[in-house]
């Protein structure tokens, strides 16, 4: 069994009286594709937001790659190696596809004001490296021909791919994808599946929120199910699929 990458211990998050997450504990191993599913409003996206530092949890700990993750500082989470995409795509619409990915390199680069002004050799070399990596990633997600188009002018499927490329540009250990197949047709979903498998093959652990059950069951090594903010089940897809608690969460209880 491979090493633990992420360990969430009793994560809790409330919004007023709403308990969005209740003591959620889960472990993700290195190199795994881990699915997080559950009915709408079960707390999946909230968990992502806590994980990436957008929300401060009201309780619990996150241990990432052996170190405690201090929440509430998104740029620190990125530094530690967590990247994500969004359910509703959030690209920098007025920047080109290329520039979007280049912003993603920000966390791994360092040129500042002085470099920008002096334009010294180190800064130029770094800028060239950023550009090169961005080009590689454009090819990787297969949108190289759209490099100089504004992100907002890309097709929906290309925007999803661009968001994944931008996340990959941060050199993540863990890539968290929030409903990447939402709104995609069958062909696009099949291509997405190949892409995600490729990402895992490159050694990046993937955390996947997805409603497309076929995709989740076919792709994930393990799946956790959230319902009303609590984890009700965590296992390999074949077991999860037949777990009575899961069936009840999705379809409602058996009629007495």
């Amino acid at each position, binding site marked *: 069994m491979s090493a633990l990458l992420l360990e969430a211990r009793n994560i809790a998050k409330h919004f007023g009286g709403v308990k969005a997450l209740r003591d959620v504990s889960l472990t993700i191993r290195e190199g795994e594709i881990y699915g997080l599913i559950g009915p709408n409003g079960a707390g999946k996206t909230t968990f992502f937001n806590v994980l990436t*530092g957008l929300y401060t949890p009201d309780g619990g700990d996150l241990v990432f790659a052996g170190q405690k993750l201090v929440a509430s500082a*998104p740029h620190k989470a*990125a530094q530690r190696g967590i990247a994500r995409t969004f359910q509703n795509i959030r690209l920098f*619409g007025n*920047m080109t596809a290329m520039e979007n990915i*280049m*912003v*993603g390199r920000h966390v791994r680069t360092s040129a*500042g004001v002085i470099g920008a002004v002096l334009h010294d050799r180190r800064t130029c070399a770094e800028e060239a490296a950023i550009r090169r990596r961005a080009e590689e990633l454009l090819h990787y997600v297969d949108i190289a021909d759209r490099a100089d188009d504004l992100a907002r002018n890309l097709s929906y499927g290309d925007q999803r791919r661009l968001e994944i490329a931008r996340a990959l540009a941060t050199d993540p250990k863990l890539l968290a994808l929030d409903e990447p197949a939402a709104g995609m047709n069958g062909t696009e979903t099949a291509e997405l599946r190949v892409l995600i498998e490729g990402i895992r093959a490159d050694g990046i652990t993937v955390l996947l929120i997805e409603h497309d059950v076929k995709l989740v069951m076919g792709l994930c090594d393990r799946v956790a199910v959230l319902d009303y903010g609590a984890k009700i089940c965590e296992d390999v897809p074949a077991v999860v699929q037949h777990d009575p608690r899961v069936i009840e969460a999705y379809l409602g209880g058996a009629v007495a």
Partner: protein
Amino acid sequence: MDIFIQQIINGLVLGSIYALVALGYTMVYGIMGLINFAHGEVVMIGAMVALTVINLLLGSGLPGVVMALIGLAAAVPVCMATGFAIERIAYRPLRNAPKLAPLITAIGVSIVLQNVAMLVWGRNYHAFPPILPSVDFEVFEATITGVQVAIIAIAALMMIGLTLLVQRTRLGRAMRATAENPSIAQLMGVDTNRIISLTFVIGSSLAAVAGFMVSANYSIAHYYMGFILGLKAFTAAVLGGIGNLAGAMLGGILLGLIESLGAGYIGDLTGGFLGSHYQDVFAFFVLILVLVFRPSGLVGEKVAERA
């Protein structure tokens, strides 16, 4: 004809200064949606610091241009520090407050800075000593002074530099990303607080240069000079499309030309009823027209590129 050319030249000089100040307004607006009404005061502080240093150096026997440059070199860091402090003290605590709160605060900061300046430098007008060589050039029967040439050239260089910084560098990308969506920029590892601080610092350095230029060109500085200048530069930013860098530059130059030509011809047009001291009317008349007919400005669209 010679008046026309002369007013065009004067307008370009004035417009260059407006453009530099307008860039400060538009950068801050682009990145955090705030109109920093204290920006005009930063311009004033730039002028006052430069003048103070130049007056201290007067007996030193240095060449005039060197004294002027030392004055400018002193003004820039003081203004940068002022801009940094304004953001840190007055705006950062209000980062998540309703938009009206920082706006009112901005007006408050403006009043505070004016009064501090009045205490430090007094209520009197300060004259810019005649240290700069007076070289005049003749262009189509009109005169352009060496100072004016320098103002236009320096302003143009600074605008080109800023554009390159924003469009071509890692820092500029981070600024544009922060302008579009700060929380997503953070997820890419951008320390948005630092970017916002830097935006204020860069805008303030442009303001320092502009302040120096105003006092050198009109040979005068005053604790209250930032107010009207700030309002006009704000008008220029709105005219171009606030939040848009190219718009601020274009708006600044246009406003300078409009004012200058307006002042030059208003006497003839009204048969001597109104004189050139009605110059200020034009800026605000333009502001009203823009707000009524094209609130997004000349260059600005809803999707204007922001920085």
